């Protein structure tokens, strides 16, 4: 198995690269949004593939909550070598996944330093969650928030048509 730090370093470079080009084009919020979209899109495609690969040996998911539990246990375990710390739901299609020590934020520090920079480092992971859900047949909207590093929350809202 590959050392997890390889993915962390690659991810850091991805964010840095996108932001470096950003300042040339459009220094305002518009350019930043594009970069966030690109990161989210990358995470989405990776999530789609993982959503096919990871559940392979598992039995069929019976309901939505099973899929969310799979995200918290198996997806997080495969990508971040740990499980999500808590999963809450309002039973009406909104789920809040909490990680008290998110591996992609852990190296930045703990507390409030770098709080404004943190959201960039969550975009890929939001896409990852959305992509995996999409392969498993669930359309969703995933957003993330940080109150204090390295803890963060991912909010998954199921889109029912």
């Amino acid at each position: 198995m590959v050392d997890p730090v390889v993915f962390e370093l690659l991810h850091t470079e991805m964010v840095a690269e996108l932001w470096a080009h950003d300042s040339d084009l459009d220094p305002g919020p518009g350019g930043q949004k594009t970069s966030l979209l690109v990161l989210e899109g990358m995470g989405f495609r990776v999530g789609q593939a993982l959503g096919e690969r990871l559940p392979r040996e598992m039995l069929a998911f019976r309901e939505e909550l099973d899929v969310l539990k799979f995200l918290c246990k198996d997806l997080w375990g495969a990508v971040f070598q740990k499980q999500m710390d808590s999963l809450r739901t309002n039973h009406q299609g909104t789920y809040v996944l909490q990680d008290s020590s998110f591996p992609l934020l852990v190296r930045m520090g703990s507390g409030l330093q770098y709080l404004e920079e943190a959201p960039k480092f969550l975009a890929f992971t939001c896409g990852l969650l959305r992509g995996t859900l999409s392969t498993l047949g669930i359309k969703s909207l995933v957003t993330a928030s940080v109150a204090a590093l390295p803890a963060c929350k991912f909010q998954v809202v199921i889109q029912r048509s």
Partner: protein
Amino acid sequence: MEGGLNQAWKSSVRGQASASATVKRLQEVVCQETASSRGPGGERVLALGPGPPEENYPLYIRSVPTENELKFHYMVHTSLDVVDEKISAMGKALVDQRELYLGLLYPTEDYKVYGYVTNSKVKFVMVVDSSNTALRDNEIRSMFRKLHNSYTDVMCNPFYNPGDRIQSRAFDSMVTSMMIQVC
């Protein structure tokens, strides 16, 4: 050749077509497909896409030998209903079984139809000649497992966009070797 086949499929099988309409549009497909190796029994392998029942469209279809194509395409389509029925039975916890392999969907006088559905709601349907009694359940299971593994590899291929028809040669050759083994 493959491009033409793509076009015909994309325009023909989307959505719930009535039986006669399906047969009519599929006529184009038959003329264009190249002949595969001939064997004593017939076998068709089909992987179908995900989505709500109105949107089941084929990601991949292959048959050996190639006469009577239409009949097999039609059988696969009707067996989709059985697959959907089994999936919804699983969901309602009426059946305790949560396996991916669906088993024999329904036997007709000449053919047996087997189904398999993945967690991502991709359905695999296999039609085998009834005279081919040498095929046992566990062999069918292992064939489906191979199909699932190959499909996963296709999904992980960066040049594949999820939802497109499968054009991977690796997938083709896996299916060919599997069908030759059986026929």
